[in-house]
């Protein structure tokens, strides 16, 4: 059991009055890349938001490294090692690139470690180093996505939640983002990915789950899902 990093057990989440997640149960093992696929409104983002405690489940539990975190405030979840790259990047537009990264490191008090993390992020995305004094809002979409990922890495996560990191990007940048996902995973970060681009996502994933109207309907390894007829028809087009 110790290789299970994150487990959702019969999680039910309401979004206002909408029953967005129905009895969701799945797990992410240490060192894995796991992808959630599903159409718009299936509950993918809601799942990630429930894990990072932006939403509190009405029933069930979220278990991370053996501890229940469903009621832990969002700002404390980060300290446990879970970082969330939100949908739409959500960088702070009026803060500079450097300040955005500093915000990601808000809970890291060790100055030396912080400096190392800056170096690591700048090595992963050299573009960010070139623009470190520029305001976040003036970056291109691809640069903003790099910043959003870099900002999440500044908190030194063990588990990285990524919501649609390739959305709206040019093919070359999509490639770059997926490469960085694989790279981060090789460096030891466990990744839970939500993607519209199911084909690319499943190719880099160890396992995947299919979400349909708030419930998990299918699961398998990345390769199995890529070959599955239902998945091919509905999500791979």
């Amino acid at each position: 059991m110790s290789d299970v990093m994150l487990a959702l057990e019969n999680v039910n989440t309401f979004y206002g009055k909408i029953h967005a997640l129905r009895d969701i149960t799945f797990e992410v093992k240490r060192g894995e890349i796991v992808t959630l696929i599903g159409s718009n409104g299936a509950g993918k983002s809601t799942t990630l938001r429930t894990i990072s405690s932006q939403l509190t489940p009405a029933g069930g539990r979220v278990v991370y490294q053996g501890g229940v975190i469903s009621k832990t405030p969002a700002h404390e979840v980060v300290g446990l090692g879970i970082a969330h790259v939100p949908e739409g990047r959500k960088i702070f537009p009026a803060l500079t690139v450097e300040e955005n990264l500093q915000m990601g490191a808000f809970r890291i008090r060790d100055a030396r470690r912080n400096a190392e993390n800056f170096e690591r992020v700048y090595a992963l995305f050299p573009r960010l180093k070139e623009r470190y004094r520029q305001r976040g809002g003036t970056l291109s979409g691809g640069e903003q996505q790099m910043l959003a990922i870099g900002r999440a890495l500044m908190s030194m996560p063990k588990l990285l939640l990524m919501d649609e990191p390739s959305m709206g990007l040019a093919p070359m940048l999509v490639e770059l983002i997926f490469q960085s996902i694989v790279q981060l995973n090789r460096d030891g970060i466990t990744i839970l990915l939500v993607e519209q681009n199911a084909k690319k996502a499943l190719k880099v994933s160890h396992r995947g789950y299919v979400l349909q109207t708030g419930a998990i309907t299918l699961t398998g390894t990345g390769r199995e899902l890529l070959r599955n007829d239902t998945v091919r028809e509905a999500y791979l087009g």
Partner: protein
Amino acid sequence: MNQLQVLVKIIPQLLSDGLALGFVYAIVALGYTMVYGILEFINFAHSELFMFGAFVGTEVLLLLKSAGILADMSPTVALLLSMLVAMIFSGALGVTVDRVAYRPVRSAPKLVPFISAIGVSFILQDLVRMVEEAKNGKFYLNAPTLFTNRITLAPNMVVPEKTLYIVGLCLLMMVALTLFVSKNKWGKAMRAVAQDRETARLMGINVDKVIALTFLIGAALGGAAGTLFSVQYGSISPYSGFVLGMKAFTAAVFGGIGKIPGAMLGGILLGLIEVFGASFLGALTGGVFGSEYKDVLAFAILILILIFKPSGLLGKPVGEKV
């Protein structure tokens, strides 16, 4: 020499009066604008935090006076001490007001916290009045005179020493706040929360703590401004906050609400417009409008500017965000 020529001679004097008033407006305006920047909420009771600080600061000075210490101590030290105590008391009150009256209704429709703020405003006015009447038998206070010197800065420009202190201390607070917001980790977190509260939470920022910090700083500045106001104008009543608060709030909107430099600029300009208006209005209109119309003039100018630039002097044009 006609009337206008006389007025031209007193311009340096007006400048110093206008700046002293304007800097006080600016410091109070900061409290409105900082809270608005984070919560999009007008803290209507901010004027009472100013008033409360004025009373606390003045009471400290009176206490020193009745203990017989005031005459022997440096007026600078007395001013700083009373201001500091006022900042602590106002700051603590600001955080308490947020915790008790605003935070419980944070997610309610916007009118609800606003009404709550109006209620707090009345309660604080009457509480101060009650305490002062019980204590002193009257509800207003006269501040002891701290500075009597007048300093000649230039020919025609003789400035009371206290005005220099007020402008200097306000400048110091502005510089400190600007540095805090641009360099300090918590200052940057304040800006992050103002831009995107949900995402700030994802960074590990405790948003409630940042909001409390915003109230603390805004209210402490208000309390400091209250003490300076009392020293400059000599007296304070529980109702002194209302009109001054209205003007400081206007200054914040004028400069661009939510923008810290906007509040500073708006406050200083409003003070200058008001003081110059009071002196020049009579001469310029041939005696039709006297100095009692200074507020009409000031607000007419503000309305005109806001018609052409609704987001205020330093605000972004409406609609650019999205």
